[in-house]
């Protein structure tokens, strides 16, 4: 009975959004002060085999209903159209709620072991009040704040963590950022000396820390399980030629949000100097990438290897600058630049590292990291391919460097492998190995091109390419979106992972290992969206 009720509730949630939208031809207005919009989306992902379209397997049938609303409760200095609001010019309340149901969990028997983790989500993702009192404005509530000029890589865009559980970082980051409760105040300064359009922005996150979310449990299709066996967990340790059972105790060492000293915050000063947009940014927060400190490790009397590890999110300090410049005469391009220095980045230290590389003996360290991103955007005519509209071409070169590097730094790729003793595989015993050696310098290049076709531009292709020149790992996305009507949008896309040579995994999640059996993230995606 309860199950039926839940099913009915789900149907009502999804249908109500659809019915509401059918009454209007765009945003739904309720009175003059409340606006509603949103969408219902059916998202179907089929993972392919190593070769395209081979051995397809449905991994997601994810249905999302999103409702967004804005309530204008203070306009032109009048609260609720009645009361004078003094110096406050305008105020609005915005909310964004999302309901998700992934039918693949009910379709696939193999997902039963997941106990519905990842099957549903019902959340008010964002809810904030905007108050404008010139020259000040304030946004209070659960929100996203995005800094920086980089697309889809983390440098200054580190204020909100990411939910990578269901589709890695392959979705629009607007949908996978985890909104946080915070205050964002802006003082619009304007002209100062030779600077134009300047403003100072201060953000304060009093008590809401969340780490990036990553799925680890098999068979979630985007579980983060390294490149070894996907369906087994390590249960053994090989010391010398002896195999020991492994017992791991994990202590959650995430920062206590209630402590005043654990507040996060930062500022941005932005303006224009000689036609160059620039910003200076500082953020004092916690690493959203979780590190692991080994508290203790050793054999007990029964010969089992017991280890106690603590997950930690160290303090980070991010200092960054950005710039963008539109060069109209010679290159007809917009140049983007972003550079950061971050302290407190967690790294693992390889087992067996000498004392100088692992002075605390806990296989954990924090590093300073710098990032330089140079990007170019260019609307480009390719008349042979499109005589009506330009292609928007955007390319980025992203360079990350560990400033206080040591050779024993290891990344997060742990491989689970069958335990092998004296050349023989031991049944039902698996060991974990980290061979993900971090390079001091890491590079990635991205390229994207988009345009539109058809008399009304309703066909919108997108091509994305990312390439790591060191590991030679690459990724392509080819997408075609069709705006069938004002309400209905269809999309088909293909994700492909490949490499030029070698077997290095690289740090970016690129390369053919992601397409090979076991992981298989070459995906074909079909989406139908009803928007209003």
């Amino acid at each position, binding site marked *: 009975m309860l199950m039926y009720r839940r099913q009915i509730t789900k149907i009502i949630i999804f249908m109500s959004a659809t019915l509401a939208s059918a009454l209007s031809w*765009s945003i739904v207005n309720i009175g003059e002060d409340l606006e509603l919009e949103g969408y219902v989306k059916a998202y179907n992902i089929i993972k392919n085999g190593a070769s395209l379209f081979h051995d397809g397997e449905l991994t997601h049938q994810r249905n999302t209903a999103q409702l967004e609303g804005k309530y204008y409760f203070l306009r032109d200095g009048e609260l609720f159209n009645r009361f004078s609001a003094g110096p406050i010019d305008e105020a609005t309340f915005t909310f964004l709620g999302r309901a998700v149901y992934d039918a693949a969990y009910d379709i696939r028997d193999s997902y039963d072991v997941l106990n519905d983790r990842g099957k549903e989500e019902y959340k008010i993702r964002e809810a904030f009040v905007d108050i404008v009192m010139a*020259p000040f404005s304030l946004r209070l509530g659960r929100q996203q704040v995005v800094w920086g000029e980089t697309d889809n890589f983390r440098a200054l865009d580190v204020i909100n963590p990411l939910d990578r559980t269901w589709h890695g970082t392959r979705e629009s*980051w607007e949908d996978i950022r985890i909104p946080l409760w915070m205050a964002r105040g802006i003082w619009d300064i304007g002209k100062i000396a030779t600077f134009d359009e300047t403003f100072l922005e201060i953000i304060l996150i009093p008590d809401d820390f969340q780490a990036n979310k990553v799925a680890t449990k098999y068979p979630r299709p985007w579980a983060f399980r390294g490149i070894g066996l996907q369906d087994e967990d390590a249960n053994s340790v090989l010391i010398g030629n002896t195999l020991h059972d492994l017992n791991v105790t994990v202590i959650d060492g995430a920062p206590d949000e209630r402590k005043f000293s654990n507040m996060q915050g930062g500022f941005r000063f932005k303006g224009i100097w000689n036609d160059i947009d620039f910003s200076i940014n500082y953020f004092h927060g916690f690493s959203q990438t979780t590190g692991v400190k080994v508290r203790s490790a050793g054999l007990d009397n029964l010969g089992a290897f017991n280890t106690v590890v603590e997950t930690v999110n160290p303090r980070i300090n991010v200092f960054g600058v950005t710039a963008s*410049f539109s060069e109209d005469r010679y290159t007809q391009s917009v140049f983007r630049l972003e550079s950061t220095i971050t302290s407190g980045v967690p790294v693992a230290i390889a087992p067996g590292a000498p004392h100088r590389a692992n002075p605390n003996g806990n296989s954990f360290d924090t590093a300073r990291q710098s990032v330089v991103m140079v990007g170019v955007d260019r609307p480009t*005519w390719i008349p042979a391919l499109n005589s*009506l509209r330009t292609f928007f071409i955007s390319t980025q070169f992203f360079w990350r460097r560990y400033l206080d590097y040591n050779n024993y730094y290891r990344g997060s790729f742990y491989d689970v492998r069958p335990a092998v003793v004296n050349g023989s595989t031991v049944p039902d015993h698996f060991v974990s190995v980290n061979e993900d050696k971090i390079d001091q310098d890491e590079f990635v290049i991205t390229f994207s091109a988009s345009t539109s076709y058809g*008399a*009304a531009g309703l066909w919108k292709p997108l091509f994305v390419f990312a390439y790591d020149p060191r590991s030679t790992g690459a990724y392509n996305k080819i997408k075609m979106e069709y705006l069938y009507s004002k309400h209905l949008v269809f999309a088909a896309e293909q994700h492909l992972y490949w490499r030029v040579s070698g077997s290095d995994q690289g740090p970016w999640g690129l390369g053919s290992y992601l397409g090979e059996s076991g992981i298989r993230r070459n995906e074909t995606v079909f989406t139908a969206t009803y928007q209003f």
Partner: protein
Amino acid sequence: MKKHILSRLKRFTKISAALAATMFLWTPALLQANEDQSYQGLRDWINNSRPGTQSAVPGQHFSEKDRESILEALIPQAAWKYYFFDDMDMEIAATRQYGVPDDWGKKMSRDYKLDESGTLIDFTGGGFPFKEINADDPYAGQKVIWNMLWRPGSNDYDMPMVTWLRSEDGKLDRVMEYTSTNATYARGDHSLVPGYEDVKSKQIMEFRSPRDMAGAKDMSIRYVDHHRENSGWLYMPAQRKPRRTLASERTGELMGMDMIREDSMGFGGKIFENNWTYLGKRKVLATINVKTNPEFGGPSQWVPHKARWEVRDTHVVLVKPKSDDHPYSARIIFVDAETYWTHWMFAFDKKDDQLLRMNQHFLKYSDDYDKEPPQQASYIKQDFSKSVGHHVFLHLGQVDINAKKPHATMTHCFTNKKEFTAARAKQFYSLRSMISGRR
């Protein structure tokens, strides 16, 4: 008898066949003459076709039957294909003289000039830069366009808009709702915001629907120095941050609409990127002071129907892009000789000199808003009485047709005059406004 009938039948068949063949041979030529959309065709029309003695009389309603006798001389030839249709209805109003704002021309800087490319130097607004247009002046074409670019009413409004994109068969492909808000900074002897004397105007445009575009927001700044490129930023909700845009790209179609940025109000580009010829004055029909936002008619539902038109004197300007890569071989613009608002624009394909794009504009005099207000947008109610007394024209919409696709974009603007205080303008038209949006 039977033989006689058979002979007459044969004769009838022969004559019918001959007539049919003649019709078959002549019809394309007739059609071609009627639908000539070539550059040369429009030049010939400008030079040769003149309204006759039987001209438009106020209060008359014209239909398709008045086409040859009256309308062909008053509607530019390249537009005939769209503007003449079976149940067409054009109401004719008396040609009026319209007033200008009280302080128009009284607070202008006098120290301005044209450089050798015809670019206006050191002009800061407050009036028309050129009071007289002399046909013999080699810079007459540029001067007409400078007057158009600095005309009263070109900024300082709230403009909610609805745009319909339609195929030739009348199928509605897309509807968009968006709002443009715009302020003149350069006001002759002062700037709206002290310290921003280099800025001509600022504009923020935000999309409201469809949902895949809702919340997208664009801010652009035009500068007093025409040689300085405009600045632009785009906020996309999916990115939650602004992005600098390249303002100098003005020749690609925008968001599926049948216009390019350079087509804005007939000409929205850079003067020095073109060669200019003044083609003289010409009377045309114009929707200069429509009762309200006009309905659309014709077989494709592309053009104003049952609208009020006026016979207007226009300056005709020929613009030829200097760049070999430009899609147009030529552009011909009809600019009102009194108000300097653009009525018609025709742009010809570089490949074959045939019509590629055209636009035609619907205007309303602000002081008539009290008697005949424009429509209210479906998504916002405005107090149109704010517009009365400003003595300016406000843009109520336009038609943009791409003749080659063929496809059209029709827009209704629900424009209301808006005056910003310096403090509010500084706050509203700032980069700070571009770092967040609807979501």
